[in-house]
């Protein structure tokens, strides 16, 4: 096993380490994707009333197509259907102070300005949430976290976010195990709802207390692995980055500030 290990200049990572992604959007550094998403979200809310949301939506759809995540994006759009319908109906039919009411039916007064307002809020919401969704779909969570850690974002912060994301499904699984365990002791989980309701405490308490007792063990496990030791770490898998991207990120940071200034001083507020 040890005899044929390659010698000389930097060994390539072993096979079980994932290779860096390729493709125009996918291969962008996670930090770049995150900043692009932040600029898009800000633009959706600050640039004009229609210009920003529409431009951002086009941009987001284009980058989703390039990254090949359009089908998965469609699922996210489907999830927003109830809220979009709700926004359109409530604003469309109950817009206060509307002068251009189309027809009056009892308390309902559908108005043109109401529907316009609803559409505008919808576009904003879609643009902002899809911008984040594309960045998320096109980036592996570990990649983003290890890249942020490399930039000095802090081991603690990256641990909290990474661990929380993986703890949620684990907690759901654990809750299912506890349901099975309690059922084997005779807890009724399939009868009428009022019988099931009696099971809330015997189900919720073990989930919460079980999770909390894990804290002690995990703390020791992390400390045994030098979690709070100061100083830099070496990384197994270096993510691609380039000078144009580095410059681009400074431009994006400037844009974040410029948009706030532009909105307050006026030029962005007067756009349609």
């Amino acid at each position, binding site marked *: 096993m040890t005899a044929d290990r390659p010698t000389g200049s930097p060994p390539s990572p072993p096979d079980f380490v994932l290779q860096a992604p390729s493709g125009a959007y996918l291969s962008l550094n996670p930090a770049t994707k995150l900043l692009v998403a932040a600029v898009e979200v800000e633009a959706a809310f600050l640039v004009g009333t229609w210009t920003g949301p529409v431009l951002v939506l086009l941009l987001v759809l284009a980058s989703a197509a390039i990254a090949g995540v359009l089908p998965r994006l469609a699922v*996210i759009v489907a999830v927003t259907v109830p*809220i*979009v319908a709700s926004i359109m109906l409530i604003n469309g039919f109950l817009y*206060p102070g509307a002068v251009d009411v189309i027809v009056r039916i009892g308390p309902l007064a559908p108005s043109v300005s109401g529907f316009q307002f609803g559409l505008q809020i919808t576009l904003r919401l879609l643009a902002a949430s899809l911008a984040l969704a594309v960045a998320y779909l096109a980036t592996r969570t570990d990649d983003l976290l290890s890249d942020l850690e490399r930039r000095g974002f802090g081991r603690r912060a990256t641990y909290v976010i990474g661990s929380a994301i993986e703890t949620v499904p684990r*907690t759901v699984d654990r809750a299912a195990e506890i349901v099975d365990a309690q059922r084997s002791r005779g807890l009724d989980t399939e009868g009428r*709802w009022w019988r099931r309701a009696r099971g809330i405490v015997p189900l919720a308490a073990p989930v919460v207390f079980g999770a909390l007792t894990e804290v002690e063990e995990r703390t020791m496990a992390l400390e045994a692995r030098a979690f709070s030791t100061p100083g830099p770490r070496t990384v197994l898998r270096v993510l691609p980055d380039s000078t144009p991207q580095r410059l681009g990120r400074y431009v994006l940071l400037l844009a974040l500030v410029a948009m706030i200034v532009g909105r307050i001083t006026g030029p962005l507020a007067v756009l349609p």
Partner: protein
Amino acid sequence: MDWLSRQFSTRVIVLMPIAIAINIVLGATVQQALKLPIYLDSIGTILVGVVAGPFAGLLTGVLSNLIWGYLLPAPIGSTTIGPFAIVAGVIGLLAGVWGRLGLFRSRRGESSSIPGAVVAVILVGALAVYTYARAYASPTDFQNNTGFDPATIDQSRIFFLLILVVFVALIAVALFLRRDVGAVYAIGAGLVTGIVAAIVSAPIAAVVFGGVTGSGTDLLVAAFRAGGDSLVSATLKQGLLSDPMDKMITSFVVFFIIGNLSQRFIARFPNGERLVSTSSM
């Protein structure tokens, strides 16, 4: 900076993701499966705030909502949660302040529990009656105020009553069996937190969603608006229906959790010395 880094010991760093998971899993169950007019999605946030400090609580709240809203896939994840991250942060921050003031400390046998019990009964009773009357008066009110299917009103009503029964039973255990007046302080802290949360969340609901969150309480907001209220005051009225009751229950549950974990475990957290009962030794 020392006071800040002390809030984020390794132990707290390990607790935070677990607290976030508790928030999300319990919140999703209560709101999506049990269809209650309360949220129960800040037990973890308040727990971290109380045992670790205001900034750890703030961060837990903000991260819970951001992860819930943007990082988790659809069955659990929900796009309407994200913008309320600021509210969750304020809840955690306040919990940290209450923790620092020692409001969540067990006060076993410190003084007579009778005045405390009276205060607790009046407080809980008034708010429970208010929430119950507003949310469950009739199937139409149930639909208007919570947005759930009127057919599920009986089920929701029983779950709500059950939660109340458990809540009152736990208060009774705390006050009469353990003679622990600390519970009253925790419930009071929850009431203040709930009112602040309602005030902070109203403008967010109004600005980001035009008062509409797509689930639950939209029709109530619409009803208030049709009655001539401004957008912000309509959403505020909706918040004041759910938040105070919710945060009182949550704060008490956290108080109860802290009281039931071993004192050795609690004392190791940054705020531990203010949470462990001094007189029970």
